[in-house]
């Protein structure tokens, strides 16, 4: 193992994971006020109307694809009878659609952020850095999907290499050999992705953890007592559910 192997495939991932976890805990505990989507819809809603949903839904689909691709070992899909050929075909088409939708939305958002002066004024250096990483990641992701999976005679099977290494990180037994020989673009994508996760906690992206799913099961009207000793929502919420037509207790 060379120095670069250790740096890129062991140190960087673990450093990024550590910063990711510690950074989130730190930020959640100290910086609730800045924990927001930092929406700019108020300033300019024109392009946002289609670009933002496209980007977000595309990205969610792409994230789902990554989870499936990286977490589920090849042997499992074989076991349920999905051949390598059909897996590549399914993953390529689904990933291609997700990638294109994400890319289109992202370009829309990028266009809006650069051309709308109002929105540009609200853009921080951290935002620019995040946009930069996303640009690189999305473009590489699309290229890998189309150039290395869909429109090629010999689709690259990352599940036999990169994914093995990725999973091995979480067994605390990094399998650096698995990365060797994988195409450079896959390696670069992985390295940039670690930078992305390492800086995630300090960017506006933290709003991703605040998807308000609890809204689905919550009474509409919330009451809180001035008293700080009293629990704010859950205990009191029951009382008022009569106003919302949901069963109180």
């Amino acid at each position, binding site marked *: 193992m060379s120095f670069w192997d250790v740096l890129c495939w062991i140190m960087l991932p673990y450093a990024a994971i550590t910063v990711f976890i510690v950074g989130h805990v730190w930020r959640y505990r100290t910086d609730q006020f800045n924990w*927001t*989507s930092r929406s700019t*819809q*108020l300033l300019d809603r024109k392009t946002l109307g289609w670009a933002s949903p496209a980007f977000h839904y595309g990205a969610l689909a792409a994230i789902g694809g990554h989870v499936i691709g990286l977490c589920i070992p090849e042997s499992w899909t074989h076991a349920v009878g999905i051949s390598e050929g059909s897996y590549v075909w399914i993953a390529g088409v689904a990933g291609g659609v997700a990638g294109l939708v994400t890319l289109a939305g992202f370009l829309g958002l990028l266009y809006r952020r650069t051309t709308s002066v109002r929105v540009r004024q609200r853009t921080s250096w951290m935002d620019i850095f995040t946009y930069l990483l996303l640009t690189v990641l999305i473009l590489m992701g699309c290229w890998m999907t189309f150039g290395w999976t869909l429109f090629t005679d010999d689709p690259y099977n990352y599940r036999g290499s990169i994914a093995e290494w990725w999973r091995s990180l979480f067994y605390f037994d990094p399998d650096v050999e698995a990365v060797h020989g994988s195409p450079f673009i896959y390696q670069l994508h992985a390295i940039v992705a670690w930078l992305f996760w390492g800086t995630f906690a300090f960017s506006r992206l933290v709003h991703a953890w605040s998807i308000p799913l609890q809204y689905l099961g919550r009474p509409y*009207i*919330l009451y809180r007592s001035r008293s700080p000793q009293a629990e704010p*929502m859950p205990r009191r919420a029951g*009382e008022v559910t009569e106003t919302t037509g949901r069963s109180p207790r």
Partner: protein
Amino acid sequence: MKVRAQIGMVMNLDKCIGCHTCSVTCKQVWTNRPGAEYMWFNDVETKPGLGYPKRWQDQEQWKGGWELGRNGKLKLKAGGRLKKLLSIFSNPDMPQIDDYYEPWTYDYDQLIKAPLSEHDPVARAESQLTGRRLENGIQWGPNWDDNLAGAPERIHQDPLTAGIEDQVKATYEQAFMFYLPRICEHCLNPSCVASCPSGAMYKREEDGIVLVDQEKCRGWRFCVSGCPYKKVYFNHNTGKAEKCTLCYPRIEQGQPTICSETCVGRIRYIGLVLYDADRVEQAASTPDESGLLAAQQGVFLNPDDPEVREQAARDGIPDDWIRYARRSPVYALAHRYKVALPLHPEFRTLPMVWYVPPLSPIVNTLETDGYEADPDDVFPAIDNMRIPVDYLANLLAAGDSEVIRGVLRRLAAMRGHMRKREVLGEHDEAIAATAGMSVEEVEDMYRLLAIAKYEDRYVIPQAHRELADNLMEQQGSCGLDFEGGPGNCGAVPGKSPAGAGAGVRKAQTEIEGFMLTEEGEDDEPVRLDIIKMLGHRGDGSRGGSDGDTGGDGLADPAGAAG
């Protein structure tokens, strides 16, 4: 029955002179900072007019508030929970800042730094969003259509004129207008709270004030679109929602909001209303829109009713709050005299800032035809008033003009009665009777509407600190009650256990007991002067006298009722 207390407000539109002092003082206190430039927690609109933001009243456009589903159940007009989550990445009903206006400042430096020239230097407008010069000039601003400015082109863009276009004219001879000051309604059934996916918005149990938890807000923006009054704003600097707080730090001290405190026309009244929390949803679900006013009045509880008072005490409402509720000018105007009306009851949020519709001008449009209204015969004039009853009905009564007529009749009767008494020296019970009121009621209402003093207009109980956090103990205002210290702050010497633990707690309750009770505190002979000062700090002599006289005054009706 579950009794809750709500701080409510009534504004007497008859007396609003449109000076915007409320807006300006509110702005100075709350929204004079980056990201909040365009926000006016309090604004004063000229009616008819577009309002702020433009056409906010048109819920077909903005989808604010509630509506009844096909099954008769209450639902958010903008859609349910799932629809909200699915459209979270781009709120389809979100206003753009241009719907309010693009905030600007002026290049004042130019006035000082411009080189000597033949013509005076000019400070040009710069956007506060971009810092750039507004190349197209200022397109819209706060109160752009103040006093009917631009009315000939725009008056029928006012959603309230729909269907009564023939009655709303912009020609000088036929024009009418009045002012509508607006703050957050602190609704009993707030659709902003219901729209907030994060659960950051809440209604305070103690006083019903609706607030945004700035730490919990994640900037999803549904409160902005969900509020039919468009009184929740998005701070484009912090990415969080903000709204009128009803100046809760002042209210907790028993002081009126800053907009009320500074109101030149003394149009505002603040007081408590007790209501039945169990009946809120049922009232908001009233099938017929014109029934919503009566339904909301039905939710209010009569604080003079001993049963209500007992239940209120059981539900944890402090005794002094119940006494304040009995003196509430808001309850009196909204329920006892029934001259105040909710703003747009058809939004089904059960708003708690109510309005006395403007009676003046009683000038008849027929005057130009040689007709002159008889000052003693005010009732026929109501239907020939300059402000069409139908317009007021669209604003304050979900289109039911009979409600407006009823209110205007009571107000006109009051004027007629007082005119006879004061100008002609006659005592005539007939006028009051025609409005279905007794002479006493009419004269009480007159006192409240015309000559009420500060302490009659603002009947605000102090917040109970012992029910929340003991700030005084936290701040260490009492320097004797520390661990192992001598103790006795606020306690009778020798009576309180000298020491920590229970002693501190005892002393603390006695301080509170002194600070918060208003009557019967003389059962203990000795009190430290410093505590007396602390106890009356914050409300000053006014609060003190209010408590003293109010306490005595309140004891009588209590006895009478019981």
